[in-house]
C-alpha cells in the first residue's frame, strides 16, 4: 500500500505549496509512490484518520489553525513543519507585536475600501489567537523543513527520505532560514 501523505496550509502565504508544485516532473514520480489524501490542491473536505506523513505549512494563527493542528497530530504518524512560518512563526508572527483587536481594526476599518466593519460574528472568519505560534509550540513535531519557502530540492529530499522509511535528518546543506 502506498504511504498516505497530507499537506496542510495553516497561517502561511501558500508559498511552500507553490514550491512543492515547483518539483515539476518529479511530481509525476511522486504521484506513483504516494497517495495524496489531503491537500489544498486536492478536493478533500476532512482530514483523514490514518495519515502517514503530514507536511504542515504556516504558523498557528487562529482558532481554526489550532484545532486543525491537533487533528493533524491525532491522525498522523509523522508531522513535518513545512517552511519557516511553521518552524519559527516568521512573517505570520510579525503581527504578534499588536493585539488581535488592533489587527482587526487595521484590516477591516483603516484599510477598508467600502464599508468599514469588523466582522463581529466569527462564523466565516476564524478568530485570531492572541499570537501566531510556530507549530511545535502547539503540537509535537517530528522534523523541520526550513526556508521561505523550502526549495523544491529540499522538499524532494525530505519526502524521499520519509518514503525510504528514514526520518529526514536534514543535512546542513538544507538548513537555511529565509
Amino acid at each position: 500500500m502506498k504511504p498516505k501523505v497530507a499537506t496542510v496550509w495553516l497561517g502561511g502565504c501558500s508559498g511552500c505549496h507553490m514550491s512543492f508544485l515547483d518539483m515539476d516532473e518529479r511530481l509525476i514520480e511522486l504521484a506513483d509512490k504516494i497517495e495524496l489524501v489531503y491537500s489544498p490542491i486536492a478536493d478533500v473536505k476532512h482530514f483523514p484518520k490514518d495519515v502517514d506523513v503530514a507536511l504542515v505549512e504556516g504558523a498557528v494563527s487562529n482558532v481554526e489553525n489550532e484545532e486543525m493542528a491537533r487533528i493533524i497530530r491525532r491522525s498522523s504518524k509523522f508531522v513535518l513543519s513545512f517552511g519557516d512560518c511553521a518552524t519559527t512563526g516568521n512573517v505570520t508572527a510579525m503581527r504578534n507585536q499588536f493585539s488581535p483587536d488592533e489587527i482587526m481594526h487595521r484590516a477591516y476599518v483603516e484599510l477598508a475600501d467600502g464599508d468599514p466593519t469588523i466582522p463581529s460574528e466569527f462564523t466565516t472568519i476564524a478568530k485570531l489567537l492572541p499570537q501566531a505560534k510556530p507549530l511545535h509550540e502547539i503540537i509535537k513535531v517530528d522534523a523541520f523543513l526550513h526556508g521561505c519557502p523550502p526549495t523544491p530540492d529540499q522538499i524532494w529530499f525530505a519526502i524521499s527520505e520519509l518514503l525510504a522509511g528514514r526520518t529526514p535528518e536534514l543535512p546542513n546543506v538544507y538548513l537555511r532560514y529565509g
Partner: protein
Amino acid sequence: MAILTLTINGEQVSGKDDESLLQIARQHDIHIPTLCHLDGLSDVGACRLCLVEIEGQSKLFPACTTKPQEGMVVHTDTERLKRHRRTIVELLASEGNHQCAVCVVNNHCELQDLAYEVGLQYVRFPYLYPKKELDATHKSFVLDRNRCVLCTRCVRVCHEVEGAHTWDIAGRGIDCTIIADMNQPWGTSPSCTSCGKCVRVCPTGALFEKGQTVAEMEKQRDFLKYIVTARTKREWVAEATEE
C-alpha cells in the same frame, strides 16, 4: 612579552602572553564561533559563543577575553560547549524578531551563519515576540531593534574608531536597547558623523542603509582592519607585518 606554550584540543600551540585564547586559536586555524568579537575592536565577552573549557577550572571562559597561561589545557569543541552554543543562538532567536525572509541581510547574516553552524533545527524556547522600536530618522541609515543581538559592535566602533560615541546601551537585562546620544531619534543626534561604520560592523540586519530591500545588503567588514592598522602601524594594509 613572553611566549607561552599551551594545549588546545590536544594540539600543542604557542602564543604571546598578551594575546587572547581566541587570537591564539585562530593563528593555529582552530575555529571558535564568535558574534560580538570583530577584529579591530576591543573585546567585551558579551555573546558567550566563544566560551571554552579550561582543564582544572569548573566554569567556562570566553576565549576572546581570556589570556593564556603556561601549560594551560583548553578545549573548544566539547559536547557541553556545543550544547551551550546552541542554547545561546536559540535565546537570541527567541528574544528578538528575526524574520530572515524579509530581512535586508538575509543570506549575509552572522546570526544565520551561527544558526547553521550549531545545527539549529528549531528553537526549544517560546518565542517572546518583543515589541521593539525601529528608528528611521537618520537620513541615510536605519536602526531596526527587532534584529539587534546587543553585541555592541556599533557602540564600540563608534567610540573606539570613529571617536563619536553616539551609540550606547540603555536598560537592564532583556530590556537592554541600543540608543543614540541621550536616547533620542538617531536623525537628531548631534554627535553622529554619519560615517556608517556602525552599519558595516553590525552582524545582523539591525543597522542598514536606506534603500536596501530583502537580502540586498552585504556588509564589508574588512575596512576596520585597514583603519586600525593605519593608525597603529601607519600602513594601509589589512594586517601589519610583524616586526
